[in-house]
Each structure stands twice: as structure tokens, then as C-alpha cells.
């Protein structure tokens, strides 16, 4: 017989081992689905791997996809550290996209446009995140529900915009007018889509780590998340910390939208985000809320997404498998997290 027993401390190598374990379990479980779909498991995963990381172009494509998830993953990781349950990164991303697209469409020198796009996009995301945070701080409204519901509000507001007043008169499709060419983010490697925003995302992760680990605001975020009562007793303004966290988190999610507009799509359409905001939750959990862990976790999910499309083409397994892998990875990670607090012990039947 086996049973769970509380453990007092978690070995450091768990931080690495648990996500890997979760990913392995997810891939193992999904191999069943691949088999059911009638394809060879090894072959299918092989296609996924080579299509996502097999050559330098594939790698740049994966990185381009990872960038928005690095931002949303950071947004979620920082929010969750303070136990501000921001499920609204998707809506914040969309708000950032809309705002930056509006700015990018104004003619002005390119670098000024990019800077303004980033600032305005981040501000838009921050404002959106401020809504559930304020509701929670002032009226004790559950932030999970409010931030989640706000996603739909923003999504449909965006739809109303691009179906209505903002509709691209040139093409007639429900998409916004494009941003100025000069505002397009520069491509770093000729012949790929690797844009400036990807580098910014890669730099943002260590900056966020520094913020959490090495600044007084980060200290306050950590303490507030773990024990708001002790934080208040220690003289920390808990409400202000929650609001600051929300602003920061929303700004990061907004930057995800900025990158998609400035570096990938150059305009806003209804499917500008295939759920990057929600994937951010998976990324943050796989990273165990550590900003440095967000980068590999986001790259993993991005590889699954790009790989799944190629696999679908090659083997006929539906590309939805990527969503299933994400979902099972999250579930496996949540279960694996149990082992940070508990160990399994064999108890003799004697």
C-alpha cells in the first residue's frame, strides 16, 4: 500500500524534475490518442520535433510563437506570486493589440511608433487588469471570475470594432486596417519572421526574475501572496501591492499583444491570439511561477503548437492534439506539484 506523507522541504532539483515529469506524462497520455487516430506514435512525435526544432527556420518559427506566451506566462507568474488570480491575460493581450494597432496606424517615424505602440499597448493591458484587481481590493469580488469574464467582454468588443467602425475598408474583411509599414518590427534574420519583439520577450524574463527576487516590490509581492496578514502587520500596504501587481501583470500581457501586431500580423483580427493568454497559465504553472522558467516552458508549448500542425499535415492526426497536450501537461503539473508538499511512502501490510 502507498500513501501520501507531508514533507517539510522540497529538494531544489524538483523545480526542474517536476515540469519534465509533467511533460513526459502528457506526451505519454497523448500517444494513446495518436494511436487511436491511426498514426505511429514515434513517427508523429518525430514529425512534431523536426517541424518545431529540426532546423534553424523551424526554431525561429517556434520562437516567434513562444514570444507572446513568454509575455503572458510572465504576466500570470507574477500575478500568481501575489495570489492575484489573473485569468485575464487573454483579454489584456487583446487590449494591448488593439491599442498598439491604433497607434501603429498613425504615421510617424518608425522607432517612435514602435516605442509608443509598446507603451500604449502595455498601458491598455494594465488598465484592463486593474479592473478585476480594483473590484477585489474595493469590493472583495472574486478575481478569478471577474478577470475570466472580462476576456469575453474584450473579445466581443474587439469583434464589434473590426466588424463595425474599424473594419478595413480596403479589404472588406473583419480585420482592422494595417499599421504603417515603418512601424513593423524589424526582422532580425533575413528570410524568417524572427522579429524584435521576440528579443524583448527573452529579455523581459530575466528582468521579471530580478524584479521578483531582488527588489522590494518583488519582496512585497511574494510576502503578500504567501501571507497577506503578516504582510499588513509588517507595514506593507497589501492593497497597493495587489494593484501594482495587476498593473505589471496586465502590462506584460498587453506586450504580448503588441508583439503580435507589430511583429507578426501588422493588424488586428478576431483570431489574433489562439488562446495565448490561457496558455500563459500553463506556461506559468510549468515554470513553477519562476520567471526564468517561463522561457523554456513557453518554448515547449510553442514547439508543440508548431509541431502539431506539421504532424497533422503529415499523419492526419488532428492539430487539436496540441491543445490536448497543453491541457494534460497542465493537469499533470498540478498533480506533480503535490509532490512538493508530499512524498509517497510505502507502508508495509505487516
Amino acid at each position, binding site marked *: 500500500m502507498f500513501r501520501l506523507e*507531508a514533507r517539510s*522541504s522540497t529538494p531544489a532539483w524538483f523545480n526542474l524534475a517536476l515540469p519534465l515529469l509533467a511533460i513526459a506524462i502528457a506526451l505519454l497520455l497523448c500517444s494513446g490518442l495518436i494511436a487511436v487516430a491511426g498514426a505511429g506514435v514515434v513517427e508523429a512525435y518525430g514529425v512534431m520535433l523536426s517541424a518545431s526544432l529540426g532546423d534553424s527556420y523551424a526554431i525561429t518559427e517556434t520562437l516567434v510563437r513562444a514570444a507572446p506566451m513568454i509575455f503572458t506566462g510572465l504576466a500570470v507568474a507574477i500575478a500568481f506570486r501575489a495570489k492575484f488570480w489573473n485569468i485575464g491575460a487573454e483579454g489584456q493581450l487583446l487590449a494591448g493589440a488593439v491599442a498598439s494597432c491604433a497607434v501603429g496606424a498613425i504615421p510617424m517615424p518608425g522607432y517612435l511608433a514602435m516605442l509608443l505602440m509598446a507603451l500604449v499597448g502595455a498601458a491598455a493591458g494594465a488598465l484592463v487588469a486593474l479592473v478585476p484587481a480594483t473590484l477585489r481590493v474595493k469590493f472583495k469580488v472574486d478575481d478569478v471570475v471577474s478577470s475570466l469574464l472580462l476576456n469575453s467582454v474584450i473579445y466581443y468588443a474587439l469583434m464589434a470594432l473590426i466588424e463595425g467602425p474599424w473594419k478595413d475598408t480596403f479589404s472588406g474583411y473583419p480585420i482592422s486596417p494595417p499599421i504603417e509599414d515603418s512601424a513593423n518590427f524589424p526582422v532580425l534574420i533575413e528570410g524568417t519572421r524572427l522579429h524584435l519583439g521576440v528579443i524583448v520577450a527573452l529579455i523581459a524574463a530575466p528582468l521579471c526574475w530580478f524584479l521578483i527576487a531582488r527588489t*522590494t516590490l518583488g519582496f*512585497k509581492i511574494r*510576502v503578500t501572496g504567501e*501571507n497577506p*496578514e*503578516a504582510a499588513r*502587520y509588517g*507595514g506593507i500596504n497589501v492593497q497597493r501591492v495587489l494593484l501594482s501587481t495587476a498593473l505589471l501583470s496586465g502590462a506584460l500581457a498587453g506586450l504580448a499583444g503588441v508583439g503580435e501586431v507589430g511583429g507578426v500580423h501588422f493588424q488586428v483580427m478576431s483570431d489574433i491570439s489562439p488562446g495565448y493568454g490561457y496558455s500563459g497559465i500553463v506556461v506559468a504553472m510549468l515554470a513553477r511561477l519562476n520567471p526564468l522558467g517561463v522561457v523554456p516552458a513557453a518554448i515547449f508549448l510553442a514547439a508543440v503548437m508548431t509541431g502539431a500542425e506539421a504532424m497533422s499535415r503529415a499523419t492526419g492526426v488532428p492539430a487539436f492534439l496540441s491543445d490536448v497536450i497543453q491541457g494534460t501537461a497542465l493537469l499533470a503539473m498540478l498533480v506533480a506539484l503535490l509532490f512538493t508538499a508530499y512524498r509517497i511512502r510505502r507502508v508495509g501490510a505487516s
Partner: protein
Amino acid sequence: MSGRTERGASRHPCQTKLDRKANCYQECPLVTPAPLIEMRGITKSFGAVKANEAVDLSVAPGEILGLLGENGAGKTTLMNVLFGAYAPDAGEILVEGRPVAIHSSADALAAGIGMVHQHFHLAPRLTVLENLLIGIPGKSGRIDRAGGLARLKEIGRQHGLNLDPNLPVSALSVGEQQRLEIVKALFRGARLLILDEPTAVLAPSEVDGLFAALRSMAAQGLGIIFISHKLNEVRALTHRCVVLRLGKVAGRVDRPASTTSAEMAKLMCGHEIVPPTKEASTPGASVLTLDGISTSGHGGTPLRDVSLFVRSGEILGIAGVSGNGQRALADVISGMLRPRAGAMTIAGKAVAQFSPRELQGLGLGRIPEDRMTTGLVTNLPLADSMVLPRIGTEAFSRKGLLNPAAIRAFAEAQIKAYDIRCPGPTVRAGALSGGNLQKALLARELAFDPKVLIVSQPTRGLDIGAARFIHEKFLAMRAKACGIIVIGEDLEELLMLSDRIAVMYEGRIAGTLSSTDATVARLGLMMTGAEGHA
């Protein structure tokens, strides 16, 4: 194993199934009965720490066994092994002479072992009756409310454990919640009841009620294991004691009633505990003054026109039955609650904001009543908790950037200075024992030489040695001209420490006595509101 039934347990008629064994033993004392439960050679390690090492222990029906030991001696661990929370590394457990395998609390309950933890396991939104019935299927899977109600009434009547079945648990006092935990265990058929420091959360007046109930249960043949750091309680209640030290049995006491507290303390600590000496001191100017403070909008009893002062080099004790405004007083002084009316000055400066930061800046040190929830962040490294109130100051950060080296150095220095037993500053604060946590909190305040110190229940849950250490630190601060307010329920502790004692009654100061006039009897009278004194 002698002298087991000299008190209470004899002469009680056999009424229930529970005391079959007890009865047999009382009628034919020459036949040694199987003990109700027996633990043999229990060893349990956590990594390098041997929490229990070859511990033998047994409880007979009708016996109240005291389990003593310093903080971290392994009492809770041993009881958790018995209750199935931990699997022992070695050793066996016998119930009525038969070895049993206890792998979970369900196994323990099935074997007739019930436990009242220090932190209760109740569902706050459910009623008393519903909490009682959780996990107990009635006939055909439906919950048997009527049957539960009848049993609740019966248990209440038998042992004086009365509870309103329809109240939600969130509306119960701590004492009532504890009563519910005991009733829950009895309801599930416990024949052995483990109580882990049950009196630490009770007001002295509630302790008598608990003891009466425990004696009544023992008289019916229940075995009881009672853990407490208060030796006078142990001497008054238990029939026999086992003393643990560093995980091993350090001694057994066969007649606690006729053993002195000093002897028991020596068994626990391995050396004598001498009471600290209080030097005479001449108090200086007032360092903290409250003038007509009233509060509202707070969970507990509000303050009504409270005025008091502490001078430098003086300890002011605040006595009172808990719930008479002590919480509000501590909250106002420590900056957690803004008063509705009145003024407060610290070292002559008026307090404007009543925020923790302002008060700290004025030279106030604070040690909260609840170490685990208010004082520390259990899931973060100890060092974080030790610098928490002053993280924004030059000592630990500059321009919003932390100074990890300074934080670590500070924590290490305090760990050394206060002999805080822990693996180091990066250990989870929650892994420390109560006494060490209290030392850490004391260290974080005293390191900044406060002019005034406010503490609530400073030695609750601490062993004698640790309590003595805390007392000595208070007296040393007093000698260094710090003014100290000690809010407490332990009158003997207050009498020993204080220069003056103020008594709170219904949110007011009922009177203040100098230490030369104060006696337990007189304070007790004032605490009931009977005697006013200015």
C-alpha cells in the same frame, strides 16, 4: 506502571461497552489488563532529525497520561504516528494487546483512537451537527441527523460538553470548537483520546471545564493522552507522565500530583530551570501614552475610553479574561486598527496615522499574538520573515533594490545571538518550532532597540526553558530603559514580570495595581468586573 487508578477512575459502574476493560481491572486488580494502547520502540526520523527514538508508551483504560517535553522533543510527532499521519520507521502499536497497522486517521479511528489537533479540523460554514456527521454514512447512504442529534445531546450531558447543534462552526469560540473536536472523537467511538496542547488556546477559566470533561471521560474508562507545557495543569490532571527529550523517553513520573514542577522541568530540560531575577528599577518618563482611546468596527470587544501609559524601564502587564478588549488594544498599539477617538503618543510624539510603519519609525517594537499567521510567512525563508517589517529601510534595501547580503547577514547574526535552532536563514519559517519562531520574532524587533515593546501572549505554547529565555530578554530590555506592555492571560507570568498590572474588563481598564499590591486573587476579582480600582 504503578499507581494508575488512584484518582477518579475507580468505583464507577460499568455503563457502556467502552469501559468493559476498565471495569475488569478495577474489580480484580491482581490481573494485569492489556493496556488500551501500547506503543513499542517507535522511531521516526525526518531526514537527519530523529523526532522519535525507541519510544515506549502505554495507556490503560481510565488513565490520563501526560506527555511532556521541550519544544521539538517529538510529542506531536509521536502522537501523529499513533494517529496514522506518519508511518513510523520502526516500532509497533498494539491496541488491547493486539498489534494493529495504522496507516491513516481512518485506521486510527477504527482502532478507537481519536485526536484533537492543536489546529482544529472543522468546516467553518457547516453547523456543529453537520461537522459531527461528516463522513459518517447513515442507513442507505442518507445522513442520520436525528441519530446524530441524540448522540450529541447524550455526549454533552455525560461530560458537560454542551454545544448548540445548529450553530455554524464559524460562530463558535475557540473553546467551543475544541469541545466539538472532542465530541467528534467520542462520536466516532474513540476509546483513546489524544489532546495536543489543548489548553494553549483556552482562557484559564475554560481550562476548568475541559478538565472536568476529561475526568468524566476517564471515569468512564476512556484513555487520554494530554500534552501541555504548563506543569501545574499536568500535575492537577494526569495520573502518570512520560517525558520526552530529543525524541527519547527521558523519564516517567508515576505520581505527578506529588511531584514538583521543578523536578518535572529538570526531567524535560536535563537541567534546573531557575526563575529570572527581577532587579529593582526606577521607571523614567512615559514612553507610550494612550489617552481616551475608543474603537469600533472590529471583530472583538471594542475599546471604550482607554487611557494608560508605560514608562521607560517599566513593564506594564495587561490582565483580563480573554475577549475583554485585549485584541483591540494590541491592534491599536501595533498599528493594525485605527481608533475612533482618542490620542496616542510614543516617546512624546503624537501618533497620526496608526500605521505599522509610522509606529515602527517612532520606536515601537511589536510581537503579535499569533506567530504563525500574523508574525511570519511560513512558506518563505526564515530570513524574509526576520526582515519583513523593515524591508524598506536602509538596513535591507536601497532605492527599491534588496540587499540580499545584508538580509542574510542580519538573519545569521540573530540566529546566532538568540540561539534559534534551525538549519539556517533559508529554511522555511514554518519548519521552526514554536519557541524558535518566538525567538525569531523577538530578535527581529529587539535588534532595532525599540523604546516601547508591545507583546501579546509571549510564551503561549513555549516550553519552560524557552519561556524563561523570553522572560529574561524582557527583563534585560527593561534594564535598558525600554517600556514594555505584556498582554497575557497567565497571571503568574504577569505577576512575575510586571511593575504594574492593568486589568481590562469589557473594553475598559477596570483598574491598575502596582506589583506590590497585586495578587492572583485580587486580579481575579477585578477581572470579573467586581472591583474597580484607579
